[in-house]
């Protein structure tokens, strides 16, 4: 549960892939984290196809719930931003068990996902929805690695540089949504 005494000062942290488990476990809700390196995209249809074999090595991987707009000529990628994470909740505990350490999306996670985040010392991060033109500028390379038949829902390997995220659920199970709502609700 969120503790109101948990008044940590949000930090700006740079996180490079491959990630160090200890660095992930030390992240706290509200921290702003700039991610550099390879991350993977997947949403509903791709999750259904994963089963126990995602098309990338899950150990220490970062999964971004997203599917971009088509790439305009001369660009690296179209607009890209998070989709609602809640829809992926039923798949997430199993993926964290397989070694995925960071999931990135928008919105709430279920109690089951929160428990799994705590158990596997993982972290859930959010990026704002509706700022996808700006976010596309942090993507340096984009490659389809699986399920091209899914069209916009294909799995992409993205090379990102200083991709800006906010820690929403940390490895202790603290939840920024609960904390923030309590702090500003009257």
């Amino acid at each position, binding site marked *: 549960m969120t503790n109101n005494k948990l008044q940590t000062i*949000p930090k700006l942290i740079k996180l490079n892939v491959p990630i160090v488990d200890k660095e992930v476990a030390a992240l706290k809700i*509200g921290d702003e984290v700039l991610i550099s390196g390879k991350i993977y995209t997947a949403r509903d*249809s791709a999750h259904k196809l994963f089963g126990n074999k995602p098309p990338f090595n899950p150990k220490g991987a970062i999964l971004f719930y*997203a*599917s*971009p*707009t*088509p*790439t*305009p000529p001369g660009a690296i990628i*179209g*607009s*890209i*931003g998070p*989709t*609602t994470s*809640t829809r992926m909740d039923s798949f997430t505990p199993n993926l964290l068990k397989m070694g995925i350490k960071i999931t990135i999306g*928008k*919105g*709430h996670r279920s109690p089951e996902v929160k428990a799994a985040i705590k158990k596997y010392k993982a972290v859930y991060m*959010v990026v*704002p*929805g*509706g*700022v*996808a*033109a*700006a*976010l*596309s*500028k942090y993507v340096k390379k984009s490659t389809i690695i699986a399920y091209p038949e*899914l*069209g*916009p*829902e294909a799995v992409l390997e993205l090379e990102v540089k200083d991709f800006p995220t*906010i820690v*929403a659920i940390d490895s202790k199970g603290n939840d*920024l*949504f609960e*904390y*923030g*709502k*309590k*702090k*500003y*609700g*009257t």
Partner: protein
Amino acid sequence: MREVLAEKISETVKALCIEANTSLSEDVLEAINHALAKEKSPTGRDILNQIIKNAQIARRDKLPLCQDTGLAVIFVELGQEVQIISRTLEAAVHEGVRQGYEAGYLRKSVTEDPIQRKNTGDNTPAILHVELVPGDKIKIGFLAKGGGAENCSAIRMFKPSSTKEEIEQFIIDTVEAAGPNACPPMIVGVGIGANFDGAALLAKKALCRKVGTHSSGFTPYQWEKELLEKINKLGIGPMGLGGTTTALAVNIEKRPCHISSLPVAVNIDCHSHRYKEATI
């Protein structure tokens, strides 16, 4: 009769698809700037600043504001003195959406079948609402409706004896349940009256009213204002990370209804509210 070529309608719809998806309306930008000046949470202010910066980049680079470029919802007010030449209005609208989503590099987010879920590949079919009006003009409204906020919408059939307070609680509860998933700060469209489908359509039309304007009908201006204040006290804040800006506007529309009914629909849109109009 004034004759209008179907191709003219397709062209107009195509342009609206691209414009709405890449250029945030002034009324929405103004509301976000206004919210930024009042937002108490530093994270909230950071997100509002990102939204403003994103709008600038999208306009400059002609990039979609959001990767979810929506289901195309189109409102046509068709003058009764207009005759459409060469194909039907419906075919012309779908063709415009097809061309707009292709030429604008917009994401195609429509499934052929809701259960089998194969993508149609061209963002059609669009949702089309047609109203016959006097005159010889065609007014087209285009709303790119993202899935996240749409999924947070709700409808309830109240009893005629239900109180205004009960209705208000339902609206607030719907917003609270939506929370971060609807990409706040959101716009709340409320339809009260009509029937089951009528209330839902009213709520959607309410969303399309300019932010900061109030219904000229018998909707009490005061109620919209009060509801907005109450919603902004929930603490949900930008992207649900806590703050004092949860909604930018509450727009209520009402219609007469059956003596035994009181339908209330709440349709939610995200801050990336993409609605544009044109008249032929």
